[in-house]
């Protein structure tokens, strides 16, 4: 099987999982052609997310590298499209501080400072059994969702201008 087909197959299994999962909304695969991008992508609505119970967009794809021995599976979750200009500096600082601590993946501010995303990439052995790969993809995607959600409350407090970055980190470190 060609690697591209394999990647698509893996995305399809994740799609199937999300179509059945509670708290997930629409999920569907967009082909490279549709996206006019070098790779296929699964887009899923992650419902009841974070303290506001909003729906956020999850995008899951393989990095379009030629490499076949190791393939890179990436999850990107868009947490907000509307970071206010005046909060951008604080959010950036908060993200930087949080990233120091969080176990995997990272938060990031998009190019225009308006998008707050979480991203997480895992390498997967390209020639491994499909079953193993499927579960690796699923674990990675779910880890990304749950990690992104876990610290979202802290970032929200920053966005709401409720606490300073230092206070937030202090809270987080003290397990509050």
């Amino acid at each position, binding site marked *: 099987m060609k690697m591209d087909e394999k990647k698509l197959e893996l995305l399809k299994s994740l799609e199937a999982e999300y179509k059945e999962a509670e708290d997930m909304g629409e999920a569907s695969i967009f082909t490279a052609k549709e996206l006019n991008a070098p790779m296929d992508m699964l887009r899923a609505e992650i419902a009841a997310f974070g303290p506001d119970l909003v729906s956020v967009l999850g995008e899951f794809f393989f990095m379009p590298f030629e490499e076949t021995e190791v393939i890179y599976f990436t999850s990107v979750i868009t947490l907000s499209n509307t970071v206010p200009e005046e909060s951008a500096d604080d959010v950036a600082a908060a993200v930087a501080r949080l990233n120091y601590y969080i*176990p995997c993946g990272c938060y990031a501010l998009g190019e225009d400072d308006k998008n707050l995303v979480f991203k997480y990439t895992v390498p997967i052995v390209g020639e491994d059994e499909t079953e193993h790969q499927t579960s690796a993809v699923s674990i990675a995607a*779910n880890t990304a969702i749950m990690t992104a959600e876990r610290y979202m409350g802290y970032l929200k407090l920053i966005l709401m201008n409720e606490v300073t970055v230092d206070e937030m980190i202090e809270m987080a470190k003290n397990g509050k």
Partner: protein
Amino acid sequence: MGGTKQKERVLRQVNIDTQEVSALSESLNTISSGLMQTEDVVTGMTITSPVMKKVNELPVNIPAAAPTEQEVIDAHDEVGLKLSANSKKHPKRVQRAAEKRTLQRNFVAKRTQVTDQLEQLRQQESDSLSHMDEHDREEHQKAKREKIFKHLKKLDLKKLMFDKSGETGYEKLAKHYKVIKTILLEIPDFEQELANKKGVENPSPEQLQEIEEAEARLKTLYDLRAHFDVYEKLTLNKYYAMLPHEEMEKLSYKELRMRLDKLYKEPVRKQELIDYYQNLIRLKEIGLEDGKSVEAREKEYLSDIRESKKKDDDRDPKEEMDKMAAAYKRMAAYLEKESLFMPEATRTMYMAKLFDTFQLDIDKFRGNIGTAKGDIADMLAKYDEYRTRPKVTADPMHALVKGGLDEKMPNKEDTLEKSDEPADGIVLGEVQKEGVRLIGAWVMRHSLSSTRKYTPFAFNLLQAPPEQQLLVYYLIENEKQDSAMGIDFFTALHNYQPDLSNFKKKFKLDNISRALRASMGIYGQMKAYGALTEAIRESDSRIEQDKDPNAPDPRPMEERRATLVQAISQRGVLLKMLYRNAGMHEDMPPDMAEDPVFRKKLHDEYAKLAVLIRDLDAVNRQINDGANTTPDYNSAQLREDGDELAADESTSVLDVASKTSEIVNNYIVGYGVKTFGSVVDSIGGYASKMTETVGYAHYSGWMGGLTSLLGLAGAIVTATSIGVEKTISVADRTAQALSVSGDFIGVAGDMLSSAGVLTNVFTNGVEASTESLKWLGSASDALWNSTQLGDKLALAGGAVGVIAGTAKFAAEAVHFGRAVSSRHDLKRSSKTLDEKDQDQLTEDEKILQRFLKHENREVTRKEISAGVGMVTGALTMAAGAMAMTGFLAPIAGALGIVSLVVDVGFGKIMNAALRHSNRKKAVDDMLNTDALVEKVKNEHPNKDEIKAKMKDKDLKEKVRTEALAMLGFSSYHECYRHVCTQYATMLYDKVFVNPPAAQKDKDMYLDAMKSLGMKMVLPGPGVQADSYKPTVEAMIAKMMD
């Protein structure tokens, strides 16, 4: 398109007609009465009360002396602009203030001059008119109107704002006063000519276009007139001279409302500052800043006018029938799938509801699609069958689960009401009804096709009373589901037409659940409003009958008086209720409200009250043979009567109104109050006081407000509650967040539930204390007290234990996360240990001591390595996330949730199914889902089959979904959030707003709040109520983490 926005603008006119214009038209009348037609506007106070007339004519008196440095500093200080004592800029500030004051004096002179000139012109014209015969006079006036129409129609309105002159707004007004005034004086003629043109039969398309454009222009002219009128008043205000206006203009509506709220509560009111702020608000409401905004406004009006005229149903019949048939098919499949869990009668009701929402469309479109085939034919066959069969009204599923909830749920939550018809006194317009139906049909269809199925929720929603559905859709369309105010019920009823396409854009499953929950609180107010409206209608019609001189059986004067008192009391209660729901201090003028239709409503009710009070006065004089005696307020007796009424704990507004009127009536008869004339006097009192103390005053259009207008009756109405039926929590939180009400007024609703929660759990430990109400206190105090069940809950014994216990739980959770803790924590921990007698340590404590010493070294070592630090932090944070049970602990305790779970942490397999599993468990505990499942298993009509065929897990899911839908939640997440909200609201109230008397209790709540680990800003000297931290929203975010 957005019907609300459009109406908002259209109705801005109404508002201007009645309030903004009232004072202006007064002045215009004095300038040119006779020249122009008096506008037929409800000017209420201005016309009916001679005192108000007098007030209106108060001269503007600008002091001749230049302001002193101290005066300028004081003025800055009063508006919160802090100046340092010896700032080098002071002389400059003083100089500027002096210049502005001179400008003000010059402007007053100029104004007088222009007014005189215009008056002369008017006089000349009037003279020449008087020499003409009737025909010529009419011809002349007609020609003049036509000329004015053409002139104003052609005028480039944006130039009126004189943008390019580089002058300040004030200078413009002073310089161009005559031009502006002259143009504004022409508006009535323009209006008249427009009316004439509209009267033309069979107008040509060109004529129609001209009319539309003129309508838009007229509305824009109204806005301009209001703008200049307010601006004029503003510029003559003392603070205008003293303060940097550009800075003050930047204040937001919220900020201004908050300041006003504080000013209104001061024992001696700074009327001039109030005027200043109020006019700043008015300018914002009118919203014209420059020529561009004038142009844009006119365009908006024009497109609204055009849009409102073409409103045909352009839906395609075949397409609509297809959509409905698809939904029908899905519903049939859904019901088939659920046939085990849903008894037949329930299924029938689901299908019947679907057809109800489709009925009008099916009847409308079925004739247009030729012979029906396939799914459409199936649907029509079923539809016709349902139309003819008797209606099923009993839903066994609903009864079963509701019964279960009533029985088993540890802490009662209200389930949704069901009704096909609006409550008494509430009338929905035809367009509204149709809008509600269309949205309902869409929601039903959507619930069947969406990935997250929510048909039971939709089914319950669509059975709610139509006006409640209207409110829900209003909240969604305006994105107010999280920021609903009590007064939204009014706006939804009177200033909203549901718009499906807009609704679809805003709709989200989470939104609608929240909107529905918010509406459940507000709906009580809505019903009360309906009941009062109905009662007022009855009283009014009785009074009208009494006034008829030819009525066959005139009633005795005493009875008439009683009805008048009744109508006044009812209106008093209504106004108070409306003010309270809008978060407005009751002495605020009605135009401080945001919604223009609401403004008009307040104004109309005031106007009507003034008439009623005058009537009452007249009737009283007749009874007392024309004697006009001063009332003898026997406040002690009044207090006693009022206490009795308040102690009654009556929650129905109608009861409150009728008892109030009873007391007032008895009072009038029994205590020698013979006239209400004093009410008018009291308004006069304000006026004279104002001129004495302020000197500088300029008429604000509002003197005493509700309190003085109602006088005696007001005092009674004040103390009686408005019957908070149940949670209007969202509304109150918003009011609080907006700071439009610093009192956190009706959180009582939520307190009800929080209090209920604790009472249920710890009935034995709790003593209810019914503290009697503060009588005749400030309105909000009394309202607060009368509704505040939270205070009735003296947290004795058990309850204290619970909160203390939960705080400990939280502390332990932190401790748990200490596996790799920070030094800070270690220090704290060892300090406690150090304070102990070292010889008396227990074995455990000794172990701890060793452990701490070891840990201390570890930490010191770890701090060197970034990598180690990172991992350490990460693990603490992961543990912290687990320690989420810490924040939830208090809720868990209060709710009696025992099986609180620890969320899956890192290092465990991440599985989508486990995400939020703690939320689900918490909700199950709250609902007591297990008991509900048991009940279903034992009492369901299909119980044997269910037991045999259905997995326990599936049954539980279904029962939970059903129960949540009845409670108005679309998902367990929403329910969970609701619990967090309740808890956050309770904490906020107990720490910031209504702390318990005993220090120990205070600390307990404080500790619980501290356990959230957020930065706190506590009440204290110099701390504004709106800066308390954490806010309710932040606490919720934290708890939901």
